[in-house]
């Protein structure tokens, strides 16, 4: 659409950096990944960072977010801290987790594990060396269809990331958890790439937590590629909880085959500027996708949630529920699109966005969209922005519950609708706790974590 090459100071720095350091970047990964780096880089060079004129980034100034003097790590740097000492995930029953520090895997013994049942879980870079045939088959394959310059940028600089391979008929009940830690002494730009492959009839739960360990500002631009093959079932939970001076961009691409089911829940508790892009492709009949999100924005934070569901095949279902509580002078944005192809008859699609606006300085932007080319479909969307229900409030007050407490209860109820979609009980309880505390205005870091993340 735009033939002029896009230039912005943020982009120029990135291009220069890539050109100066590509040799070091290339050393990390095998050739097939490096080839993708090259094409992604070219794409990014052509499109540049999305500007505010870009319809999809109308409400979020990504160019400005990239203006910080961020440093990039092109290879694994020496760690000055012991991760296991400073960080402890306190969700009970979730103790076997993987830690990605600044976009790299450090723990040698956990680098890449092949389990008895054939499942492979661990570092992506390691997997691309040990099992190139698997990685090669899927790496970056879904991204090419979506022209998103931020994921192109990620693919050009892609560091390490989580790799999960579930072979045929394998069901893993224990959740696979990834902690994305940012521990930096200088301003960092971190760009991990994660790949999750579920083969036929397989099933797993994946939990991702984004944390920052010190108040240094950083930019996280991560990509998730999820492939759900026939009859597979995936639950993906993501919790974003970093400090206010961070920029977090996630690009999640979910590609679903016949009769697959993917349920994703995204909870944004804190994070400065957050932009979540979720792309879902329903490629074969009877695939079902459900995505939920909850964001609690306060202070000057800016949360932008974007979802794009593409129905390519008949008889698929998609469902989205996105809810936001927006306080102080923060901004909460929702933008969703359901795109139904001509051949995707008998599609069922529903999209809903609800926002609670608590102050006059806060802003809500909502853009639910339908683009439909098939006639035998049932598609609907709804968006509502308002405040707490007066009747419900009156009910509580008339029973002697204080105004503050009533507000608290009602907000908790508002959030519950999304939190309840987390099927992992310990995680659900933990998030419930965090949300409650967060709504009470208390510190929102995980309770047993001793780290000062500057909130």
């Amino acid at each position: 659409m735009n033939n002029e090459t896009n230039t912005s100071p943020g982009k120029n720095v990135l291009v220069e950096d890539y050109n100066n350091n590509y040799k070091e970047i290339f050393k990390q990964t095998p050739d097939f990944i490096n080839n993708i780096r090259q094409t992604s880089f070219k794409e990014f060079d052509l499109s540049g960072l999305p500007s505010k004129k870009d319809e999809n980034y109308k409400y979020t100034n990504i160019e400005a977010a990239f203006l910080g003097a961020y440093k990039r790590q092109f290879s694994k740097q020496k760690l000055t801290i012991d991760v296991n000492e400073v960080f402890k995930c306190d969700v009970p029953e979730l103790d076997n987790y993987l830690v990605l520090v600044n976009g790299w895997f450090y723990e040698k013994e956990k680098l890449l594990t092949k389990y008895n049942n054939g499942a492979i879980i661990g570092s992506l870079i390691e997997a691309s060396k040990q099992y190139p045939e698997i990685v090669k088959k899927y790496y970056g394959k879904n991204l090419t269809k979506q022209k998103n310059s931020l994921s192109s940028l990620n693919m050009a600089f892609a560091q390490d990331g989580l790799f999960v391979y579930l072979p045929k008929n394998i069901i893993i009940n224990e959740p696979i958890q990834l902690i994305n830690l940012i521990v930096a002494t200088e301003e960092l730009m971190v760009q991990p790439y994660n790949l999750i492959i579920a083969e036929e009839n397989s099933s797993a739960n994946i939990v991702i937590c984004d944390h920052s360990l010190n108040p240094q500002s950083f930019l996280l631009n991560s990509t998730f590629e999820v492939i759900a093959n026939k009859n597979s079932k995936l639950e993906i939970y993501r919790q974003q909880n970093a400090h206010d001076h961070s920029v977090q961009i996630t690009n999640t691409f979910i590609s679903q085959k016949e009769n697959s089911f993917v349920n994703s829940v995204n909870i944004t508790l804190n994070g400065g500027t957050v932009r979540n892009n979720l792309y879902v492709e329903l490629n074969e009949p009877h695939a079902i996708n459900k995505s939920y999100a909850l964001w609690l924005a306060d202070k000057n934070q800016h949360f932008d949630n974007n979802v794009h569901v593409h129905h390519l095949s008949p008889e698929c279902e998609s469902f989205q529920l996105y809810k936001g509580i927006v306080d102080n002078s923060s901004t909460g944005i929702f933008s969703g699109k359901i795109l139904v192809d001509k051949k995707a008859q008998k599609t069922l699609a529903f999209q809903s966005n609800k926002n609670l606006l608590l102050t006059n300085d806060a802003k809500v932007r909502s853009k639910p969209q339908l683009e439909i080319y098939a006639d035998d479909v049932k598609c609907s969307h709804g968006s509502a922005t308002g405040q707490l229900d007066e009747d419900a409030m009156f009910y509580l007050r008339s029973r002697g519950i204080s105004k503050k407490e009533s507000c608290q209860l009602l907000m908790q109820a508002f959030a519950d609708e999304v939190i309840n979609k987390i099927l992992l009980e310990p995680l659900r309880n933990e998030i419930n706790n965090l949300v409650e505390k967060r709504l009470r205005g208390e510190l929102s870091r995980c309770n047993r974590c001793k780290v000062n993340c500057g909130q």
Partner: protein
Amino acid sequence: MENEQDKIIYEVTGNEYKYGFVTNIEADTIKKGLNEDVIKTISSRKNEPDFMLEWRLKAYEHWLKMKMPAWAHLTLPEINYQEIIFYSAPKQSAKLNSLDEIDPELKATFDRLGIPLDEQKKLSGVAVDAVMDSASIKTTFKESLADLGIIFCSMSEAIREHPDLIKKYLGSVVPYTDNFFATLNCAVFSDGSFVYIPKGVRCPMELSTYFRINAENTGQFERTLIIADEGAYVSYLEGCTAPKRDQNQLHAAVVELVALKDAEIKYSTVQNWYPGDKNGNGGIFNFVTKRGICKEDNSKISWTQVETGSAITWKYPSCILKGNNTSAEFYSVAVTNNHQQADTGTKMMHIGKNTKSRIVSKGISAGFSQNSYRGLVKVLKNAENARNHSQCDSLLLGNNCGAHTFPYIEVDNKEAIVEHEATTSRIGEDQIFYCNQRGISTEDAIGLIVNGYAREVLKQLPMEFAVEAQKLLQISLEGSVG
């Protein structure tokens, strides 16, 4: 009367577009193309005062810097603005005093359109300001309206005779810098209607204009301005038809509504421009900027539109709710068939306190058409207690068409309640079965169901239009059901 009307509509909107006749009237056209001289010519032909010419030239200068908008969900062909004749007025010698003096052929045109001026005058009590290729031909009922102090005349007359009102209000809602098509309109607009309702007057009849694009290759650049002073009320009808031609014709109109304290304006449109033939050749490009402002407290603006024609429609009748306790409504039925494209919707800007807006949009797409709703609801920081409810439904007939919804919601005030809902589906087989079972043919059943579906909007139309619009709906979709 009604039977006659039915007959006309049938004739008109049957499978072939029956309004496709060309009136052989000597038209006073100027050379095609657009430059400063053309604007000066238009202005001088219309004996306009200097301030108008200056305004037109300013707009033209600004337009040169602008680009055609590409954001709509439309496939727009390149438009060569140098290939368009920007002014065409039927040649007439002197001013007319009675209907008899009107060129008989011109009169016959109107007769075929179903708006015989004299009959209409007697029977329906609708005052018609018929606009044929840019110059206002005859304004009926002028005298009786004048008794109440109502000014209802052509824009060019208003510019000559009421320059104060024009200076004050023209461009106050849609400034000359507004958008590509509106700016173009400011530079070259030919004529249009002007309505002023004085303080406390309730306009006793529905005011109405019929537009017709006639001469080949001329763009119709209408400019309408309606002002309702304190406590006034007016209901205004606009209807459009255009003769059939192979080349696309450009229609870039601007409508401005100003409602002062306690005033109410109701604006209804039935748009039935030539949609092009079955293969998508020809048809009108309808790029219209319509905007109203509830300028002072307690005022109300209501837009109702039934869009069945035009090859491409780009139209967003909007409201600025500036005064306190103001309210706005937008009711729309947009039907697209064959290769038509429509991107239409509204904008509601809540600025004052206790403002209310309501949007009801019903899209119906058939054939190979694309039908989009695009709307913005914006609540500003100080707009306390704002309330909006939007409902946008789409109906798909056939699997080659598309129905899209692009709503934008921007809320900056915590007391606001803004709701939006939309559904897209097709006519249920069970509904058709139910009708079939009772001896109603599938074609009729679909007409019935579509009418029921659009009823919420149709019932907002004034009586005269409602009947016509219902028929139009049914006929526009004829042949679209397989």
